[in-house]
């Protein structure tokens, strides 16, 4: 809400200049949004002159419709400075006066409220007018607040809206058919050309102000073009009504039509301010020489406003704020803001809420008023008591930290990417299911929730490759989304050097066994044995990628990303065939073994015997099956089988040599050479029998 500093001074003699005023109000709940110095402009004859003027822009929070008016802001200023507030009224001097309404004359129109719940009050008055431009001071004030001057009559209605917060409308009396104004729901398909020249098609329960024949205005939103005040208008009907906020919000939204009026009504205007607005507008017409009332105030009230009363205690005030606030300060603040606080006992009040404060419904709301005007700067810094040991934190935090540590140690940097991605980016990873789509995405780039965390790290590789970085290792721990719900996932991508990038040479690019090794290390950190199987989803290259399983259950994948997928994400073609990825479902890994649940194995008391065994086998035989055979045949004393060499002695003969380092050890004695030899022979025999192996 913009206010003109000099206009504000009509109502309160604030001693500070605009900047200091803005600073002080910022600490009391009206945040200063902007301050634009302006030269002093024309002012009403009786206004207190100011030197330099300014337009002060306050950020009014959604709960304070009263501060969408100059008087509302003046009331806050008066409370902050402890100064009196000069309200427009019948007794007010000069240009602040309001008209005294004649009582007994017959009105030239009637008002019927056909939708009393949504429009419970409608005040109107007829006036004879001479339409002309409004005086310079009024035009200046309207323009300062961003409202375009139109004519004296229209400017008066806008001036009253800005001053008091009560939007008004003036109809050309001659363009209203009949003498009965009805506030009713629009008929289905009813149309109205609004002031902006657009034809609006209406539907119930949208409200209209109608004459005998048709709608003349969209209630609380915008008037109709046909009954607008023109240069030739000689008689008007002024409207000041109260509209139910949700009705205005729905209508404004449905029509895509937001006006100064609808903004105020949808937040909640003062339900007691209608007659006063009419009286103020009529006085201004007179002051401007633009016209005078012609007939009485017509004040249709279907549901009278009942001012809420709230019981408040001093103990509650201090108990919630945690700071001392003298009883007198509580009363002074509430009074300054327009509340009436009637003492019901020592330190107890019955507080009546003024109509312009629809936000105040509970004692806590009153305590906020007291607290902010007493000053939050007086709050001491104290600590809440700790009455019990905190329950354990979310176990996922410690669990995810394990994966993070391992990945950092393996040289991967941590990435964080948006959870919503392009539909095309999600598609390869969605396993044929439709990804979770957003109804109102910002753009196609953020259309669906990622079904996997891989797209983010693949995009990170793409970004870094395109920015000249050849070697990229990134990981992300984040949520992936599917119809079954959310799951926490670790994803990583690796391209370029795998190590040895050194002046002494030995540089090597990442291959399958690097990414498989990372999976192995993560499994080790969680105390589980991860096994790899050849079945992989289509976004990986079969034969260079694997499914990762723990205890027979699939927990993820690792291996070479399909170059076509990489290229579609912007990775240059030359590099698209070298992106290795992994993704592991952390929820599944943690179910298998909570971290830290392992026990230390005592160190062996008897020496180990190490023997190497090289076997020539078909190159189609997996190392895993040969290793399993050796383990099975080796007996209890074979405690470790490690493949340390793979060698192809005669290229093209389909045979390959696999060399294993076998460690034998017994927990209770030193093994004899014969025993180890016996085991080796048995291993050899079984390997020959099962795989046709030849010892080298």
């Amino acid at each position: 809400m913009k206010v003109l500093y000099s206009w504000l001074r009509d109502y309160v003699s604030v001693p500070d200049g605009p900047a200091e005023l803005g600073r002080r109000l910022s600490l009391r709940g009206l945040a200063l949004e902007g301050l634009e110095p302006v030269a002093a402009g024309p002012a009403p004859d009786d206004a207190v002159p100011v030197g330099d003027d300014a337009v002060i822009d306050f950020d009014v929070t959604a709960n304070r419709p009263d501060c969408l008016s100059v008087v509302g802001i003046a009331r806050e200023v008066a409370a902050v400075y402890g100064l009196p507030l000069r309200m427009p009224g019948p007794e007010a001097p000069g240009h602040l006066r309001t008209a005294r309404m004649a009582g007994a004359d017959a009105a030239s129109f009637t008002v019927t409220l056909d939708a009393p719940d949504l429009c419970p009050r409608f005040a109107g008055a007829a006036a004879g007018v001479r339409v002309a431009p409004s005086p310079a001071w009024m035009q200046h004030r309207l323009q300062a607040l961003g409202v375009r001057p139109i004519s004296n009559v229209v400017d008066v209605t806008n001036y009253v809206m800005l001053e008091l917060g009560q939007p008004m409308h003036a109809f050309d009396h001659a363009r209203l058919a009949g003498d009965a104004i009805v506030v009713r729901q629009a008929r289905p398909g009813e149309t109205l050309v609004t002031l902006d020249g657009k034809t609006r098609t209406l539907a119930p329960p949208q409200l209209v102000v109608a004459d005998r024949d048709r709608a003349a205005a969209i209630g609380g939103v915008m008037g109709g073009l046909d009954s607008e005040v023109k240069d030739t208008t000689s008689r008007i009907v002024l409207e000041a009504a109260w509209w139910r906020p949700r009705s205005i919000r729905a209508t404004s939204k449905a029509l895509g039509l937001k006006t100064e009026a609808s903004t105020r009504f949808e937040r909640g205007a003062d339900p007691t301010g209608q007659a006063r607005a009419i009286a103020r507008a009529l006085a201004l017409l007179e002051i401007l020489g633009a016209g005078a009332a012609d007939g009485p105030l017509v004040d249709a009230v279907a549901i009278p406003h009942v001012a809420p009363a709230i019981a408040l205690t001093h103990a509650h005030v201090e108990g919630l704020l945690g700071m001392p606030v003298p009883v007198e300060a509580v009363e002074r603040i509430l009074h300054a803001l327009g509340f009436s606080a009637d003492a019901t006992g020592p330190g107890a009040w019955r507080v009546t809420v003024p109509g312009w404060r629809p936000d105040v419904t509970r004692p806590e709301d009153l305590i906020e008023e007291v607290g902010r005007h007493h000053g939050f700067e007086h709050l001491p810094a104290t600590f809440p008591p700790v009455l019990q040991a905190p329950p354990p934190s979310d176990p996922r935090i410690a669990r995810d930290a394990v994966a993070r540590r391992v990945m950092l140690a393996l040289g991967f940097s941590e990435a964080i990417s948006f959870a919503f991605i392009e539909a095309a980016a999600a598609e390869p990873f969605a396993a044929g299911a439709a990804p979770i789509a957003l109804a109102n995405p910002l753009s196609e780039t953020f259309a669906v929730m990622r079904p996997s965390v891989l797209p983010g790290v693949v995009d990170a590789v793409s970004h870094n490759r395109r920015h000249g970085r050849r070697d990229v290792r990134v990981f992300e721990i984040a949520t992936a989304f599917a119809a079954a719900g959310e799951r926490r996932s670790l994803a990583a991508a690796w391209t370029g050097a795998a190590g040895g990038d050194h002046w002494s040479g030995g540089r090597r690019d990442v291959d399958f066994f690097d990414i498989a090794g990372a999976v192995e290390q993560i499994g080790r950190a969680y105390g589980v044995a991860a096994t790899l199987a050849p079945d992989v989803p289509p976004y990986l290259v079969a034969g260079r990628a694997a499914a990762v399983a723990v205890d027979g259950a699939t927990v993820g994948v690792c291996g070479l990303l399909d170059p076509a997928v990489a290229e579609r994400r912007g990775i240059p073609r030359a590099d698209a065939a070298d992106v290795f990825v992994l993704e592991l479902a952390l929820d599944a890994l943690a179910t298998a073994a909570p971290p830290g649940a392992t026990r230390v194995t005592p160190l062996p008391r008897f020496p180990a015997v190490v023997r190497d065994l090289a076997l020539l086998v078909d190159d189609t035989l997996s190392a895993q099956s040969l290793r399993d055979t050796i383990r099975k045949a080796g007996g209890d004393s074979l405690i470790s089988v490690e493949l340390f060499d793979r060698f192809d002695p005669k290229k093209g003969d389909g045979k390959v040599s696999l060399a294993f380092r076998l460690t034998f050890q017994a927990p209770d004695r030193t093994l004899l050479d014969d025993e180890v030899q016996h085991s080796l022979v048995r291993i050899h025999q079984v390997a020959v029998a099962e795989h046709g192996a030849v010892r080298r």
Partner: protein
Amino acid sequence: MPTLSELVVRIADDDAAFATALAAVDATPAAARATALDALKIAWVGRKSGRIADLMALLPTLPPADRKAFGQQVNALKQRVEQALAEREATVAATRRPAHAVDLTLPGRAPLLGHRHPLSLVREEVQQIFTRLGYQVLEGPEIEDDWHNFEALNMHADHPARDMQDTLYLNEPLHATPHAPWAAASSARARAPQPLTLLRTHTSAMQIRYMEQHDPPVRLVAIGPVYRRDNLDLTHTPMFHQCEGLVVGKGITLAHLKGTLLAMAEALFGAGTDVRFRPSFFPYTEPSAEVDVRCISCAGTGCAVCKHTGWLEILGSGMVHPAVFEAVGYDPAEVTGFAFGMGIERVAMLKWDVGDIRLFYENDLRFLEQFSV
């Protein structure tokens, strides 16, 4: 036969010649100096053909009476030459590498270490601060239902506060049970699962989930991503991270909130950091306050970072609204509480002077590598 006086002149010439030769050696490049020094040594103190030896060879040609004086002068020259050579040799030896030595200044073989994401660093720091202050740290679902994200937080369908946050909705509701390892097995106050329709707009949704499942007292922080329909610019991204704090119990006050946030600000930004409360509005707190910290860039004197106000806004907070307690089945006459919500990105931007929030989501290694491993 040469006379003593002639030979003394010759000694003096040799002395000068040695000084010149030595200076020439000193002027040779470091790499060639050892060789030049060896040559100089052979030329002067070589046993057979050195110039000192040449002088000595003249000794027998002198009359016996002069021999002593001549011998003393030649020896003096020899000592000067040997001392000068020894000094140079020592210098050369000191700069010469020992056998098998390597160039110690060549780059070492440094295994690659990953770098942490700054948001992850701030997140962990906040977790540690509140763990130290006796809080439970929780995470929660990112896809939420209307009840937990809005309704129970006193943001009803026609509440103006819904205008404040533009929410991202799912195309079709999701019928899944949000996974929460911290949730109690059952609670009389927990509602039956509802269709999940939106991306949570704040971690405040976690307040509701937790209070529905647990009786007071409550002392928790909830951290994680939240989503709003904000276009990307220097200070906005449609996904960002929040840290939510909630303390509920008998006699919790706004002053407790101030003490807690002051402790957090000092831990995050250094001792002596000041905080101030500005009254504000949130539907789920009453009273509500925006909290500023004294500008960490100018210490409050005013600069571009704080737009010359001396203060930086870091979070929104307040006393839990009684309507929120009613929604989760707490009795607002029995307990009070405070809550706050802070943007992790905002803290990171202030802490490291990051001018563009989008950098956090580009995952550019040139950015990430500026943060600790």
